């Protein structure tokens, strides 16, 4: 190793000290999947929606690294193509539920009183609707597909963020720095948004990473049940559903590949989320 590289390596080690190896691997895996998803339309070896009836139910080979399904579609291409929809849906859920949850939790925690009572009771009632059920109700009202399920799930995930934010805001509001800003005559909205929000954002980010994993599982379940992404559009949940017949016909990869992908991505999100949460608790 050259002498020049050494200090850089040392710096990197110092910066990542205390982070578990698993978390670093997890973060790397997530980056790889995101890149695959973004670049999917350029890098897939075959068209993931087009079957080839001369090559059905093949075992892995040099041409088809993960084999083919019962319609002769290349499993690797479907897996990469499916990464896009499989990650986009949960991203929508997490962004919408986090933003709305932030607003609700912030208002409830900051205003207190009857506003807090009404909002908190509303959140309690939302908790009564399991995300999967709300999504199925939405799908049967507005038609199969990712959109209705994603919107419904964003609402179902809202109370998790809202409750967390409300709890932290209640603590922050009583802190000296907030009182000091108040004494300076700054408006409540300004203090809440510009001063308190940045303090609690990392905690919410950690929660969002964990929610992302759950949302991915729930949306994949909807597609698995045949109510979400519709074939031939590639999606991991739909692939597992469609791959069941190939599995029983002796070509397990069409179902097993997306299954493994889901488990790996969810483990990675859980690890990163927990690492973030640990670090934040270590700071505050």
């Amino acid at each position, binding site marked *: 190793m050259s002498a020049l590289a050494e200090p850089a390596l040392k710096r990197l080690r110092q910066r990542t000290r205390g982070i578990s190896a698993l978390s670093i691997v997890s973060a790397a895996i997530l980056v790889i999947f995101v890149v695959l998803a973004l670049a999917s339309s350029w890098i897939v070896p075959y068209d993931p929606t087009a079957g080839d009836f001369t090559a059905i139910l093949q075992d892995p080979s040099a041409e088809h690294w993960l084999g083919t399904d019962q319609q002769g579609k290349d499993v690797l291409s479907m897996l990469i193509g499916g990464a896009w929809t499989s990650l986009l849906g949960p991203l929508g859920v997490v962004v919408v539920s986090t933003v709305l949850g932030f607003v609700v939790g912030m208002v409830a925690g900051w205003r207190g009183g009857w506003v807090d009572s009404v909002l908190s*009771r509303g959140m*309690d*009632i939302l908790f*009564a*609707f*399991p995300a*999967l*059920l709300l999504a*199925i*109700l939405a*799908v*049967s*009202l*507005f038609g*199969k597909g990712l959109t209705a399920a994603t919107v419904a799930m964003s609402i179902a995930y809202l109370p998790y963020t809202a409750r967390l934010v409300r709890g932290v805001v209640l603590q922050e509001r009583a802190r000296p720095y907030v009182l000091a800003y108040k004494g300076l005559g700054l408006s409540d909205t300004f203090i809440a948004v510009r001063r308190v929000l940045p303090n609690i954002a990392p905690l919410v980010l950690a929660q969002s990473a964990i929610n992302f*994993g759950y949302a991915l*599982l729930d949306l*994949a*379940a909807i597609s*698995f*049940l*045949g*109510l979400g992404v519709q074939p031939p559009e590639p999606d991991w*949940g739909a692939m*597992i*559903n469609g*791959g*069941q017949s190939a*599995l*029983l016909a*002796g070509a*397990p990869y069409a*179902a*097993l590949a997306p*299954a493994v992908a*889901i*488990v*790996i991505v*969810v*483990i990675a999100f*859980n*690890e990163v989320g927990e690492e973030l949460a640990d670090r934040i608790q270590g700071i505050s």
Partner: protein
Amino acid sequence: MTSTPTRARPRTVGRARAVLRRLGSLVLTLWVASFVVFASLSLVPGDPTAWLLRGHNPSPQARAAIREQYHLDEPFLVRYGHWLGGVLHGDFGRSLRDRAPVSHLLATQLPTTLTLVALSGLLITIVGMTVGAYAALRHGRVSERVVLLLVTIGFATPSFVAAIVLKWIFALKLGIFPTFGLGDGGWGDRLQHLALPTVALSVTYLALVTRITRSAMLEQLSRDHVEVAIARGLPRRQVIWRHVFRNALGPILTVSGPNIAALLVSSMIVEYAFGLPGIGQLLVSAADTNDFPVVQAIVLVLVAAFVIANTLVDLVYPLLDPTITSPQAAR
């Protein structure tokens, strides 16, 4: 310890008041849930009759029957009143597919779901708590690390993934278990058909209960009174059973209770994967074929069951841990 009546009395009153408040919020939640499930129909654009019957080829009589079933000629609140009244009497209307009463469909499919959930609940509780306790007692050893690794994987494994992996290994490679349906024989045959579905449904929650049991036990093990008890030379088995495990039960129950209630919902994925005739599968096929009355009824029943189960957990918790008097404080 002796407690004087003057001390005991306010506590019981406080407990009773907390229980009443919890039951009140249960009723409120159920009522709002019923309203949401009913009112969701008015979110669809256009004429509800046409929407309800889309994909079907309705006769004028069928149209009239739908208008009557939903009282579509009357104002919204009157419609809701009719519907809620029916639901409270066990009348959920009729399926659009074959005009069968929804309550009849529910009654024939519910036992399968309940059996599956009960078997899974048993498996999760027994195995999860045993393995979790084992891991806690082997703290720092290789066996604990193995358990933790399995927990991490299990927790990220959804039931549909577990279902296809189990089908692949046990039904296809080993040929031990059937992959589809309930069988037609007696209890033995039925249990054999339910074996893989039960495991598939349990994996995620099993990991969760194992993890919670382990950390709750570890926390109790490090407490002073436990260390004193061990230092005094009390038998280890007795200390662990009486002081560690009993005190760990509270946290285990609060976290696992709601999750075991969630089994009712996850059950639909497993029923679909293994072709089991439960209400989850009924819900999925109703959503697939635009049979809205059936969707509405099952969503309502599942939400109600979920909320009631959670309330029960909240109410049982103070009985396990006498230091907590109100269910609210349990949070």
